[in-house]
């Protein structure tokens, strides 16, 4: 029990420290900082949004991650349903390929994607990020949703078909409403992964106008030194939405994270 408490504290501490420091004046950041600071200031947040236009990367990230998620859940949902419920040749092979694509390293497609995007003049655009994001987000979505669809009893769908619904109608009227929690969980996970993505965003953007939040933070530079206060404030801003989502849906997310892996 004691060990567990310590572990939880160790787990939470860096985040706590970042929050505290983001409210600490720059001059005192590296002077034997107290664990429970008394004077908190909003300076860093003010600079972040007023001078650094940090809302631009936030907007970029929202657009890119949001579009990726919507596209993947819609298109991937149909695919996952077919893989979970219909019989056709080549199904296991397809599942295997999707799983493999989901696992392969992003770096291995950076070079051609860069060349293609450059050719299509999509470097430093939203589509130029969304398309690469599909490489990892689509397999992830499909994989999670296949798991969720399989959990629904097949008899419900059979009952709907006996009741006179076509396959697609049964999907719409019975499967989708029942799979809503699973769809929501999948959407959240896909969003979190897209929001946090770094390598593609770093490779396929050129300037601040299309940078996503992680890239913007990583490339923060001050005139003489690293602007730690602003970086930490930005870190809190970057983390807040995903953290809130994750905390609100923690039970489902844990289910989603572990579903594909453990039950096998």
């Amino acid at each position, binding site marked *: 029990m004691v060990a*567990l408490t310590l*572990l*939880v504290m160790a*787990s*939470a501490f*860096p*985040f706590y420290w*970042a929050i505290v*420091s983001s409210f600490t004046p720059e001059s005192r950041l*590296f002077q*034997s900082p107290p664990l429970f600071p008394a004077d908190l200031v909003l300076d860093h947040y003010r600079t972040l949004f007023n001078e650094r236009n940090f809302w631009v990367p936030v907007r970029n990230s929202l657009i890119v991650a949001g579009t990726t998620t919507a596209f993947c859940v819609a*298109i991937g949902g*149909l*695919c996952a349903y*077919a893989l979970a419920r*219909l*019989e*056709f*040749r080549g199904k*296991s092979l397809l*599942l*295997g390929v*999707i*799983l493999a*694509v989901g*696992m*392969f*390293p992003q*770096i*291995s*497609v*950076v*070079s051609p*994607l*860069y*060349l*293609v995007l450059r050719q299509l003049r999509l470097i430093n655009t939203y589509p130029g990020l969304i*398309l690469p994001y*599909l490489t990892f987000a*689509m397999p992830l979505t499909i994989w999670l949703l296949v798991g969720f669809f399989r959990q629904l009893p*097949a008899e419900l769908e059979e009952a709907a078909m006996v009741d006179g619904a076509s396959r*697609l109608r049964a999907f719409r009227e019975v499967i989708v409403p029942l799979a809503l929690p699973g769809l929501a969980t999948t959407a959240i996970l896909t969003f979190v992964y897209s*929001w*946090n993505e*770094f*390598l593609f965003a770093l490779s396929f953007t050129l300037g601040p106008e299309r940078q996503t939040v992680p890239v913007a*933070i*990583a490339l923060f530079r001050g005139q003489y030194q690293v602007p730690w206060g602003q970086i930490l404030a930005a*870190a809190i801003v*970057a*983390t807040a939405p*995903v*953290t809130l989502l*994750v*905390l609100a849906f923690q039970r489902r997310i*844990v289910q989603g994270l*572990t579903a594909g*892996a453990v*039950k*096998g």
Partner: protein
Amino acid sequence: MSVSESEGLLRGADPIRGVERQEARLAWGLVLPAVGTILLVALFPLAWTVWESVHLHDLRMPWLGRPFIGAANYLEALGDPRFWGALGHTAFFAATSVGLELILGLGLALAMNRAFRGRGLVRAAILVPWAIPTVVAGLLWRFMFAGEGGIVNETLLDLGLLREPLVWFIEAETAWVPVILADVWKTTPFVALLLLAGLQNIDASLYEAARIDGAAAWGQFRHVTLPLLKPAILVALIFRTLDAFRVFDLVYALTGGGPGTSTEPIALYTFNALLQNLRFGYGSALSVIVFAITFGLALIYIRLLGAELTGSKR
């Protein structure tokens, strides 16, 4: 034979196949958009990477064109000490961090598996590091390991473990410490959750039976928990190893591969070859090597668990 009869016979022979074909057609219709997308954005680029890797392609020297040079890029990599260094760093990082994560994750999972108050709170607390963007996590740890006045140095000084502040990022040996710690901090929760799910699948009556058979706590762990948890451990191990082999964000934010190139992992080296030096042919060869290594590991995963997943319908 009347017309209707022959029609009946004809339909009697074929319609069955027709129904199956109809279902298969519907399935392919549903699958196609997603599979097409994957082909387009993942498999086609992958093939292109392989093609690039056997060509000379340097964006800084466009006048050279893009001539076929066979295995020259691969041979260059094999003769490049920085490549071997990067591979070594990646393997070291993967082995150390995954090892620590498995041990800590197992402990955490065992602790969480006991019913206690505030379990939701614990779960939430350990989910936060997982949800933080990796780059941001790297920056947080860089901040904490800052040389002058960083909290780690201050604490170690206060405890008397250090006489003077340590500049962590100036020596390879010490630069690894925040890198490994940050990764352990960020991904142990994921490992713990995987293992916890595995633990919760173990029938509680098995422990009761083991107890009646005279097994003490250690015996129960050794003979019930470990063997039954093996699949979950295996999954966590493989997932994490694959992930660790791709490490990029964390090192980029924490050390930038430095000092020098002494903490540079293979993905960062490849990235630099591609987008810093614009050597697309050589960088692609490196990409293919990274892919081959991860693909080998992924194959093991599919072999071990994929069969169970795809084969168990109905």
